[in-house]
């Protein structure tokens, strides 16, 4: 069984290296096929492990010693337990299908081989992240996914940077750097958390750390929890480090589906779930996480209400759903958070892939106000995206209903009525913006004709690659009970306790707001553009400008920082550092120039200098006595 662990982990790496061999060559279909096949192998191994692992059978392998310096020992070890195997299956399922989808999507791209190399490298890093048995390995995977995310957001790095007045979206290269820098800030927090764990417990292995964490005093545990969560906030794009995720949509769409919806951004949630032994000891931090999550759930959803960029809407929706997961994790319902993570991965990735189909058909047009009426030409994409949107909105019997409803129920059962209300409003918004998108893209007036687009349905195999995800988006919710039994072998058991009446009340109210959101969007948008309503309300400007937060960051952080850098460059570096170095060089140069005069070429003069030197050395030897 250990071999399955290795196969699951290293098959993507093999694929990545294989594709990298052809990196600078023009498109070779082989790379796409080989990486997809290896991903399939990895998926198969993960499924095998899923079937094998239970309470008695947890696979823990030590591949080799990694770092051994003094008392500091870290093994290169991997663990396949209930949590990591769920993550492995989710990651490999989505990534295998995204690989196949990408063969079609990147069909005409010059960087085809390079793309597959990066994509498989991402999966490998993600597998390290979820399978590592210690915090350092997790951190390596954490940085690895960050790197691959940077490479893939900036995949079309050759696109020019244009001022925001011309194009409100930014260039891929800028977006990639923004994501990278934003994540560095958070990673510093996480690194401090890891240092503190080692400092206080002398080990980084999960087993040891979690067994001994209770021996620390409360303040230290709180600090560790807070710092680790700062890391999670960056990776999962929680407020105030959220701006990078919407801009990351400049990357290819399958990348958004895999990295910025299904896997990487959920790494923060995974970290909190994995460290539940720490967070259970500090309920205050947990409550803060839940509050932040609920805030983000509404905050991000509100930005999605009016946005016109197809992928940005879905990106905000991802943000909002990550907020839901953090609410569950913060309130101690870890298995529910993991469950929502899994179902979200399925329906959100397929939603993104559908958006990819639409954009591909529309020559990479991303504004939904130029689309409309596409259902006629792209019936299957429409159906798949509608299913995914229903799942996202949380309509029975789709996957999102089961997981999201559980989160709301948890908030209610723990008497956090305010959190519950926020989430409830968020659910309504989710339903509204999902169907606003569907309506604007697929129904109504065929605006694309005005702009001269000739959309077409995607290749059949592309649709076929989306089908399993769409099916999972429909049925994944029914695995709720077996899922719960499986992961609560490791995670703390949690069941929201509400009376039968309250349960039904919650069910009706939640479904009610979701359905009314959908109805509102469908009814209003079938009559024309409903966005005018928001413009009249006056909130439109605030929402479309993302609450002016990017502007604020630009003015309050980027510009002063640029000024500071310029000051440091022009004043400190050029005037002080450079000047000092130049001065020393000048002295040496000038003294050399002056001393050249003694080289007359006359042997007699040289001998005199030699004699003088001898006398000086003799004098030095006489007068300088070290140690006296």
């Amino acid at each position, binding site marked *: 069984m250990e071999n399955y662990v290795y196969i699951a982990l290293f098959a993507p790496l093999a694929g990545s290296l294989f594709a990298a061999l052809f990196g600078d060559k023009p498109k070779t279909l082989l790379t796409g096929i080989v990486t997809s096949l290896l991903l399939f192998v990895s998926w198969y191994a993960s499924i095998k492990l899923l079937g094998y692992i239970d309470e008695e059978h947890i696979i823990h392998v030590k591949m080799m010693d990694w770092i051994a310096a003094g008392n500091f020992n870290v093994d290169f070890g991997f663990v396949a337990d209930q949590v990591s195997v769920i993550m492995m299956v989710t990651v490999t399922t989505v990534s295998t299908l995204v690989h196949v989808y990408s063969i079609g999507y990147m069909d005409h791209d010059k960087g085809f081989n390079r793309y597959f190399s990066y994509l498989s490298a991402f999966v490998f890093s993600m597998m390290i992240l979820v399978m590592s048995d210690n915090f350092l390995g997790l951190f390596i995977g954490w940085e690895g996914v960050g790197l691959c995310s940077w490479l893939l957001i900036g995949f079309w790095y050759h696109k020019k940077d244009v001022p925001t007045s011309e194009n409100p979206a930014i260039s891929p290269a800028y977006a990639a750097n923004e994501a990278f820098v934003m994540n560095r800030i958070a990673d510093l927090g996480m690194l401090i958390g890891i240092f503190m764990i080692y400092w206080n417990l002398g080990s980084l292995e999960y087993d040891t750390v979690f067994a001994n964490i209770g021996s620390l005093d409360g303040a230290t545990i709180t600090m560790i929890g807070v710092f680790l969560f700062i890391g999670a906030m960056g990776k999962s794009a929680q407020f105030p480090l959220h701006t990078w995720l919407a801009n990351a949509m400049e990357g290819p769409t399958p990348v958004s589906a895999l990295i910025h919806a299904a896997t990487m951004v959920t790494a923060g949630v995974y970290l909190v779930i994995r460290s539940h032994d720490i967070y259970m000891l500090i309920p205050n931090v947990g409550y803060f996480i839940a509050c932040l999550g609920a805030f983000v759930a509404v905050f991000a959803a509100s930005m999605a209400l009016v946005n016109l960029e197809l992928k940005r809407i879905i990106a905000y929706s991802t943000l909002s759903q990550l907020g839901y997961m953090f609410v569950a994790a913060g309130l101690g319902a870890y298995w529910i958070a993991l469950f929502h993570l899994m179902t979200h991965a399925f329906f959100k990735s397929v939603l993104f892939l559908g958006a990819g189909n639409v954009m591909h058909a529309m020559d990479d047009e991303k504004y939904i106000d130029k689309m409309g009426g596409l259902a006629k030409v792209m019936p299957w994409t429409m159906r798949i995206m509608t299913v995914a949107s229903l799942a996202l909105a949380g309509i029975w019997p789709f996957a999102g209903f089961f997981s999201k409803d559980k989160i709301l129920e948890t908030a209610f059962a723990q008497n956090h009525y305010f959190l519950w209300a926020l989430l409830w409003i968020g659910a309504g918004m989710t339903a509204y913006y999902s169907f606003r998108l569907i309506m604007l893209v697929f129904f109504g007036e065929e605006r694309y004709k005005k702009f001269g687009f000739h959309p077409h349905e995607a290749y059949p195999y592309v649709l076929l690659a989306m089908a399993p995800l769409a099916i999972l988006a429909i049925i994944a919710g029914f695995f709720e009970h077996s899922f719960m039994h499986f992961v609560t072998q490791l995670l703390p058991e949690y069941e929201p306790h509400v009376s039968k009446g309250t349960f039904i009340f919650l069910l009706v109210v939640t479904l009610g707001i979701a359905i009314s959101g959908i109805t509102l969007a469908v009814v209003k948008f079938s009559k024309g553009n409903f966005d005018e309503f928001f413009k009249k309300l006056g909130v439109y400007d605030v929402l479309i400008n993302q609450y002016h937060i990017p502007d604020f960051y630009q003015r309050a952080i980027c510009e002063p920082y640029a000024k500071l850098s310029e000051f440091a460059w022009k004043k400190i570096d050029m005037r002080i550092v450079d000047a000092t170095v130049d001065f020393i060089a000048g002295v040496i140069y000038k003294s050399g120039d002056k001393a050249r005069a003694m*080289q*007359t*070429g*006359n042997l*007699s003069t*040289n*001998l*005199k200098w030699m*004699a003088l030197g001898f006398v000086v050395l003799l004098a030095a030897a006489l007068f300088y006595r070290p140690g006296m």
Partner: protein
Amino acid sequence: MITLTHYLVLSAILFSIGLAGVIRRKNLLLLFFSTEIMLNAANIGFAAIGKFYGDLTGQMVAFFIIAVAASEVAVGLGLLVLWYKRTGTIDLESMQEMKG
């Protein structure tokens, strides 16, 4: 009674004479003489100190220096003859080719 000091003073005087010769003289041949004087000043010093401490090492080094001086003179005189054949003079001023 001749003491170690006398020998060392003699050695110092000889060395100074040699050094003055190296600095002042323009004739290459006399430059060699001066060098020899300096080397032998060192020899006197070695031999005297060797005797004073009853240690043979000083005299051994003196012999070494004599041997090295002999070979150095042989090579030096050879070059000198060559120089004379080429330029017809052994004046130090004729060697100005190292001017930077």
